[in-house]
């Protein structure tokens, strides 16, 4: 080993001890106890990820990239253990109730009845969500094929190889920009249409139904219908384009255009959902506020930007998160029907698509698991960033 596990534990212990000492100091607890608790928590945290990995990232033959991963895991482990311990001890020391601000009236006397009530949901979640998550983590450190004689432990190779892989970088960037456009285009068009549709026009309810129903379509169906229409050699769109404009685009076989066909199909399908929520959101904006703005002499756009838009922010926020999830995960069906095989030059291969291609077609489960973890972290990361930036700007009322 390049770095001994003991050294790592000591590092963890020091970090933990310092952190908890700080907490204890502020909460008025015994410093020595805090140091001790922190040391234990920190040491344990440093081993949290490394013990299952058997400290493999620090073995002599490994490269520096592996060490970097190892270091990240150690730090992450420390943070994951020390933070809750610190939070808990802080609360306990300040004698705050662990159950905050909950209604105490109206609750039933026999608290243990709650357990069987929760049991179905919890069991399913543990069995079918948490356990597969652990299994995914385990698989990501393996070379594994269905039907093979054995599995081989490869430490973090499935991850480190992604770092140098230009094809994966392409996939990553492509997923990002496709998702960006799906979300932005869908939401901005929906907002525009919703502002028209929420007005008390004649036939507004008919408009609404006609605009919103694509939400009920499945991504698969969107893919199929667009396959019919945008087929480069027999599809309606190219036929009309040829007649009217004299040009034909390679909707599905041109690597520059194919992603846009997917984006178009995805936007078409998701607009219904966004329009629905925006209409509802717009209806919640008090009309007198807008009128007041009009009296003030503010123009249409200024009124919109300064009054309506901030009031829509909770809905916008919710929609961004939902649309992001849709763009990253559910466009798989659309891509599979529209450009099976991942598109010319893999131009419509998103990260999700690549995971399935690797795991199912190439029977390479380890790499697929590793890539799904990267995908997951990416989405989490983006959501967290959104929560931090957008969350502050969201105001829930005047």
């Amino acid at each position: 080993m390049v770095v001994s596990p003991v050294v790592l534990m000591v590092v963890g212990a020091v970090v933990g001890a310092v952190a908890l000492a700080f907490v204890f100091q502020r909460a008025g607890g015994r410093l020595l106890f805090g140091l001790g608790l922190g040391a234990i928590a920190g040491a344990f945290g440093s081993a949290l990820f490394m013990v299952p990995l058997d400290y493999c990232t620090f073995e002599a033959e490994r490269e520096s990239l592996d060490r970097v991963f190892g270091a990240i895991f150690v730090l992450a482990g420390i943070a994951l253990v020390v933070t809750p311990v610190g939070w808990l001890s802080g609360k306990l020391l300040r004698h705050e109730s662990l159950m905050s601000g909950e209604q105490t009236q109206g609750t039933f006397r026999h608290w243990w009845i709650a357990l069987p009530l929760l049991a179905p949901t919890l069991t399913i979640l543990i069995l079918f969500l948490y356990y597969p998550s652990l299994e995914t983590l385990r698989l990501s450190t393996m070379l594994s094929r269905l039907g093979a004689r054995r599995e081989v432990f490869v430490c973090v190779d499935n991850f480190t190889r992604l770092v140098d892989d230009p094809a994966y970088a392409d996939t990553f960037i492509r997923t990002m920009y496709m998702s960006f456009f799906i979300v932005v285009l869908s939401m901005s068009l929906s907002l525009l249409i919703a502002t028209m549709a929420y007005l008390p026009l004649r036939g507004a309810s008919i408009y609404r139904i006609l605009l919103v129903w694509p939400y009920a379509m499945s991504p698969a169906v969107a893919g199929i219908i667009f396959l019919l229409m945008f087929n480069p050699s027999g599809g309606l769109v190219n036929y009309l384009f040829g007649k009217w404009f004299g040009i034909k685009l390679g909707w599905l076989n041109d690597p520059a255009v194919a992603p846009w066909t997917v984006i178009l199909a995805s936007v078409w399908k998701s607009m219904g959902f966004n329009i629905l929520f925006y209409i509802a959101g717009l209806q919640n904006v008090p009309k007198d506020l807008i009128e007041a703005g009009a009296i003030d002499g503010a123009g249409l756009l200024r009124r919109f930007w300064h009054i309506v838009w901030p009031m829509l922010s909770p809905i916008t926020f919710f929609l961004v998160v939902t649309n992001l999830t849709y763009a990253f995960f559910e466009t798989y069906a659309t891509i599979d029907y529209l450009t099976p095989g991942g598109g010319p030059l893999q131009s419509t291969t998103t990260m999700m698509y690549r995971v399935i291609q690797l795991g199912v077609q190439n029977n390479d489960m380890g790499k697929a698991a590793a890539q799904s973890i990267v995908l997951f972290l990416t989405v989490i990361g983006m959501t967290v960033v959104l929560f931090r930036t957008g969350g502050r700007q969201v105001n829930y009322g005047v």
Partner: protein
Amino acid sequence: MTAAYRETARVTPASSWKKTVRSWLPKRWYAHLILVVACFMSGIPLFYALIVSTQTNAEVFRYQFTPGSGLESNWNVVFYERHLHTYMINSVIMTAGITIGKTVFSLLSGLAFVYFRFPGKWLVFGFVLITLMMPTEVLIIALFRFINDLDWQNTYYALIVPFTASATGTFLFRQHFASIPAELSEAAQLDGANPLQFLFRILVPMSWNTIGALAVVQTIYAWNMYLWPNMIISDPDMQTIQTGIGTLRLGGGALRFGPLMLGTVIVSLPPVIVFILLQKQFMSGFTLTRDK
């Protein structure tokens, strides 16, 4: 800012109020135009699919816009050659199972979180909420192996059971129950009702909007599921429709668009109908409309 303006608004006489409203509202025709165009764009793909579903391949490639002559043969292909009804039944069972299961389990857990105090409650709640961040797509490879280990491949269990727990549902019901005055449950307890009776006799009748909203979302979600059924079902008799319509592409020959579109249209009808029928519940269930 607001109080003063509200005052002004109330005091302003009727005619200038109308003028104010009109000055904010864009000209009606402008709105109508945009909306019509939008509806057009929104509806054309399915409308075209509808037309194509009645045509033979030859007519499709001639780009005729009127219904064609192939409806009967397309129908035969869809139902007799390709057994779409088998797939639809499977999807109905799967969708019903998931929707009912999820609703019931979420009701129970919502009840537990609002009307009980037990140690570690927030921990458990957090435990459930975190799963919002764990979409099945990420876990799908491991889930595939696990379901196979359970020997559930090609069964309804595999399609239904993993999806009967829902953080969204639990969260929704929790929010909804928490907004109900506590006196109600106190009164129920005084009457000697046990928690389940309270749930089904009192809470549920008050929650139809939320239940309806969840049902709409779940039905659409379950009906439209593609990735998971694709992976776990290899037996053609057990396949669900989203993958099933894909078999219409196989055709044993050239790609036949007529049957494919007919299948697509049929497949899209149920969720659309459910959505339109339950639209009101959907809107109020998510407290999207101003509450009564």
